[in-house]
């Protein structure tokens, strides 16, 4: 009861925002997959946050008496190591829980970098047009001319292997998608009456770009941001797998797969679980992305 009065009070204070969120949640929650994805994602965030409490062991502690121990339910396994141990006797479950931190960090950092770069370049290109536009968009075309993983590989070769450099490289590779999106949206919005009105009222370039136009391009940006989040996790894992991303003994999932490769025919669990963790994370985020698209972008809304 008290909750509903609170809601009304809030609604009275700021009607737009709340009905906006309600409409959003209405469209988002219709999509069952999206709600499941969101639920899984929240669990992952909790796992990452509380990894030190949840994990039975530290991620890099080695049990010299338990190399390649199978999972608990298989013959030879024990409840001591629920998902088994890796070739040097580390608990796989603990490493996976700590690994969630890296994957979510990668996604967040890459999307932030790509979003910042993409918004800046896209705004400049779409707002000023002319040679600024040509120069920026040709540069974006150039980045898109290379297969993304290849370009990321080459950038990491220049920068040196490692998690941070991998994130930089992936952000650079994903960034043109944001720039293109923002540019197109800005060009569509720029001639609208509300922008002209703001301009007549005396708003400067910066204000027009950031406060008047940008908020109206947010929907597609959020959707693209979600898809890039999952892409970033996949690409970082691929770089880790190739040995150019996070370096061992970091419990990054792709790196874990790389060091497990030679044992695939002897110990299925060292390979299966890290990959499953990547798949579940990426799938959850893509499900959320589908739901966000339905809820935020009327043009792309599935009929």
């Amino acid at each position: 009861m008290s909750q509903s009065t609170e809601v009304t009070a809030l609604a009275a204070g700021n009607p737009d925002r709340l009905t906006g969120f309600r409409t959003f949640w209405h469209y988002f929650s219709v999509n069952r997959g999206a709600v499941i994805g969101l639920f899984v994602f929240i669990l992952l965030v909790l796992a990452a946050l509380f990894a030190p409490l949840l994990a039975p062991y530290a991620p890099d502690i080695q049990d010299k008496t338990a190399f390649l121990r199978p999972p608990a339910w298989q013959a030879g396994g024990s409840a001591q190591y629920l998902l088994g141990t890796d070739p040097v006797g580390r608990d796989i479950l603990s490493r996976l829980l700590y690994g969630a931190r890296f994957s979510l960090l990668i996604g967040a950092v890459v999307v932030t970098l790509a979003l910042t770069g993409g918004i800046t370049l896209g705004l400049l290109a779409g707002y000023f047009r002319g040679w600024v536009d040509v120069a920026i968009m040709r540069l974006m075309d150039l980045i898109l001319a290379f297969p993304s993983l290849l370009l990321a590989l080459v950038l990491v070769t220049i920068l040196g292997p490692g998690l941070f450099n991998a994130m930089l490289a992936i952000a650079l590779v994903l960034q043109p998608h944001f720039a293109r999106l923002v540019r197109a949206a800005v060009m569509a919005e720029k001639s609208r009456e509300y922008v002209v009105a703001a301009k007549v009222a005396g708003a400067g370039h910066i204000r027009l770009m950031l406060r008047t136009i940008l908020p109206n391009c947010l929907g597609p940006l959020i959707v693209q941001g979600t898809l890039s989040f999952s892409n970033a996790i996949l690409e970082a894992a691929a770089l880790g797998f190739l040995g150019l991303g996070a370096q061992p003994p970091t419990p990054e999932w792709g790196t874990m797969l790389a060091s497990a490769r030679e044992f695939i025919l002897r110990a299925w669990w060292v390979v299966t679980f890290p990959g499953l963790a990547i798949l579940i994370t990426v799938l959850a985020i893509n499900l959320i992305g589908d739901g966000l698209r339905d809820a935020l972008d009327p043009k792309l809304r599935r009929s």
Partner: protein
Amino acid sequence: MLKYILHRIALLIPTLVGITICAFAFVRLLPGDPILAMAGEHGVAPARYEELKEQFGYNLPIWQQYARYVGEVATGDFGVSISSKRPVMEEFKTLFPATMELSFFAMIFAMVLGIPAGIFAAVKRGSWFDQSLMGTALVGYSMPIFWWGLLLIIFFSGYLGWTPVSGRIGLQFFFKPITGFMTIDTLLYGKWDAFRSALSHLVLPAIVLGTIPLAVIARQTRSAMLEVLGEDYVRTARAKGLSPSRVVGLHALRNALIPVVTTIGLQIGTLLAGAILTETIFAWPGIGKWMVDSIFKRDYVVVQSGLLLIALIVMAVNLIVDVLYAVINPRIRAA
């Protein structure tokens, strides 16, 4: 039409220049001295160092170095591999057909399954088949393919013992390549057991590489088909009393396939990126594995030229797709 093609080519010139600048800059952006970097771990004697500096033109102003590089590339001179001492172009020519063959079969796999599945899902919209197909497609789309490949190896090569773990063909077979496609060459020589060996080596990598395109094509076909099925001419065709299979197969499909063709073309970048991972897992001797190996061997001449060649291929394929698209869809040409 010719005017359209020329216009498209003209648009590519800045990108082309950009690609050569990237490849040119790559070696110079590497940390440390470019000649020492190219010489690799063994290092180089001081006298030889000066000689190499002269030979590669590193003592010239930077724009002259670039002009020289473009001149070399334009005449087909891509340098000599540091590790194998063979011309890069020669290596590329022997390895590229392997990647082509793998990509070709991956695409066949994706199209043969993806297009019918997408059509069927659209026709039976909302059914359990539609829902489970779209669910599966999303899983496929989210798949870390390097892990997918390892899982297939565990199951089909390890557990069932059906397929070999790596390579392109059994070691007992040796052919002088004719087309460079193992599956075709073995048939041309009339060696059935060799053909079977080549095919069994090809199956798993092709499935792995084709997985993401399969998911994308199934989704795209479904949504294109749904859109077309709502059009007036489809309703007219139905109203005329045509059988449902004729309406779907003839009237709707032809129009629905136009966006699908573009999607297939756009997958070429995905395929080449995927080839890097797939070839590494299955030890498939193509250009993806070549690039990764060269990065680890610090054979930067190969990395530089590989980067350039792969970007040129992607560009050429995109051009072909654009032109084909204009051929099937006349509305594009006018624009």
